[in-house]
């Protein structure tokens, strides 16, 4: 009888409140008991308790009193573990671990190739890599949520999926889901249309680890933001891990509700920077060797320089070289030569290395440090001049095709060993000096490299 009161109560509420509020707040409530005029309900999180108490408690109590004819008291509890009926992925006892994990990964949208071992670490991404590993090592501990931000094609998705794969390797019974924010939007739209919001909420609010890529795409989508807000709160309060990625820093995402933006910053914000040349070369060599081919330093450097600052494009670039090598049989000895590399990339990339000249670099450096071009060529040994001069020489060496003597000549007729010294000094400094690292990145942005 009392259970049927609850069903009647829900029907009445459905008539009284907005459909999306009903779906959001009433559907997820579970009836526990109604004894001695005491109604007990359970909800997924403590946040939910507050919300129901604030917005719907009075209505629920009034409806119950009308139905039962007796004064009713309401108590709301958080369900055991936040979600006692949580549908865990079961691993069949007869399945081999590898097959079982594979089956789970298919449901999690994770791609096995994205793991920590296949991620090439350098200064530009070591912090992000370390924070991702820390999260994978202990979920929902210090870094919750983990917010990874950085430019396109730098490895955000790789690190997110690596977290998911590492977590599942350790514990295949955990509920892990990786998806793009657009998939979340689509799922929400479909659930609303099919009237299956209750299922939607159970799906997203019962996870141990939610990995959501390109979160900036929910900007401007109010309903999605509302739903994600509650998903976030529920998971967070149940001490479940959330990892998000974006190409923007949280405060720079426009058309995003402030309450969400602020939540994105609750845990750790970890940025991933464009890779240095050395990392790009290492990636090229690794990818080519994985395909059973070999490449010398000159060709690897050529390929690495062709792609400005984007690992995804670098992967595409190597994929094309590999495809050409395999299909055109232009390599008899499994070695990628310069001719093949050049032919493959013709028309696809701007020849930045050639088109960039010393003057452009000098101008960008002078603009950034508020110097005159003549300062760079002068004999001045003031630190305010020597450091920018070294930076300019370093950038010329890295991003133009000019020789050391030519660079020396363009900086007041200096010897090539002076240029070598400057380049080496900046490289060493970049290892320890974060400010310089950021300054050089800003100049590179101006130069579009």
């Amino acid at each position: 009888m009392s259970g049927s009161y609850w069903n009647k109560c829900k029907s009445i509420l459905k008539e009284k409140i907005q459909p999306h509020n009903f779906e959001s707040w009433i559907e997820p409530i579970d009836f526990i008991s109604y004894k001695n005029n005491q109604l007990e309900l359970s909800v997924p999180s403590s946040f939910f308790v507050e919300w129901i108490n604030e917005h719907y408690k009075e209505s629920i109590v009034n409806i119950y009193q009308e139905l039962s004819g007796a004064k009713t008291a309401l108590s709301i509890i958080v369900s055991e573990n936040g979600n006692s009926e949580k549908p865990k992925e079961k691993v069949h006892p007869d399945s081999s671990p590898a097959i079982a994990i594979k089956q789970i990964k298919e449901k999690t949208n994770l791609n096995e190739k994205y793991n920590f071992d296949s991620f090439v670490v350098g200064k530009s991404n070591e912090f992000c890599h370390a924070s991702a590993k820390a999260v994978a090592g202990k979920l929902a501990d210090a870094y919750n949520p983990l917010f990874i931000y950085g430019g396109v094609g730098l490895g955000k998705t790789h690190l997110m999926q690596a977290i998911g794969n590492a977590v599942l390797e350790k514990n295949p019974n955990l509920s892990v889901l990786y998806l793009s924010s657009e998939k979340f939007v689509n799922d929400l739209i479909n659930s609303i249309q099919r009237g299956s919001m209750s299922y939607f909420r159970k799906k997203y609010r019962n996870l141990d680890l939610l990995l959501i890529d390109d979160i900036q795409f929910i900007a401007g989508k109010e309903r999605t933001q509302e739903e994600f807000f509650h998903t976030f709160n529920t998971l967070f309060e149940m001490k479940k891990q959330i990892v998000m990625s974006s190409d923007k820093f949280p405060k720079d995402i426009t058309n995003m509700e402030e309450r969400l933006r602020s939540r994105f910053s609750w845990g750790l914000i970890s940025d991933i920077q464009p890779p240095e040349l050395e990392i790009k070369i290492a990636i090229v060599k690794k990818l080519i060797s994985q395909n059973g081919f070999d490449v010398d330093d000159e060709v690897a450097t050529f390929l690495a320089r062709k792609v400005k600052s984007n690992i995804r494009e670098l992967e595409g670039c190597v994929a094309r070289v590999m495809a050409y090598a395999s299909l055109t049989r232009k390599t008899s000895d499994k070695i990628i030569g310069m001719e093949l590399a050049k032919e493959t990339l013709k028309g696809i990339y701007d020849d930045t290395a050639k088109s960039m000249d010393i003057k452009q670099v000098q101008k960008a450096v002078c603009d950034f440090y508020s110097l005159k071009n003549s300062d760079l060529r002068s004999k001045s040994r003031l630190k305010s001049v020597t450091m920018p001069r070294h930076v300019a020489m370093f950038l010329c060496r890295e991003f133009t095709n000019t020789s050391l003597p030519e660079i020396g000549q363009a900086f007041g007729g200096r010897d090539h060993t002076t240029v070598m010294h400057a380049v080496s000094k900046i490289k060493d400094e970049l290892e320890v000096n974060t400010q310089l690292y950021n300054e050089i990145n800003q100049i590179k942005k101006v130069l579009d490299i």
Partner: protein
Amino acid sequence: MVTMQLKFPFPSARNDSFENFLVDGRNGETVKFCKSFAEGEISGVRSLVLYGQRGAGKTHLLIAMSSMIREKSGEESVFYVSGKDIREKVATSKTYEELKEHLGKYEGAVFLAVDDLDEVEGNQEAEDQVFHLYNAVTQSGGWFAVAVTEPPTAWKFSSWLATRLLWGLALPLNPVGDEQKAAVLKRVAVGMGLTLPDNVANWLITRLPRDSASQMEALETIDRHSLSAGRKVSIPLAREALGITGDEA
């Protein structure tokens, strides 16, 4: 010839295949890559960009790849959509939900071909939708191919879209030379038992649309007209058969 049974209709119910695509030294390598891509022989590559001028045969190759993938996989979810369609759906949909109703069907595709991608360039919302489609298709194990006029160096797509397009193969497609087209037309005509004089072959390739499907169709029309009229193939007969008026010969 491959019978197209695509879930989403391709333009003009064309029967474009690799077999009826004109190949010469200018486009041979690209055609070979497209075929290998459709046969799943290029490991680790899930997307392909074809770039080249109008009439080079980009649509033909997109359709040829679609047919091959459909045949090999036995899957129905092989789709073709033009950039113009996407742009128009973005412009006319009143809500995001409505837009997703139109475009959501492509997300589970085994193969999605997006033609005339130039049409979405500079339209942020439309570019975002192509980006989402790319992710949805490739992340669920499907293949994605686009055709665009400009080479990557001239693209003005948003970085997140461009970088995904450049994750896979990017292939230039040059139109075959007129001499090759004429020679191939003559060879095909021989196969049909039709004698095609040089002047008619040259007339056809310079007067008709440059895509090979149109030219093959014209040849079949001329053949039927020649048989029914009991006359040898000549420029006047070809003009009659194709309904081309004016002193163009």
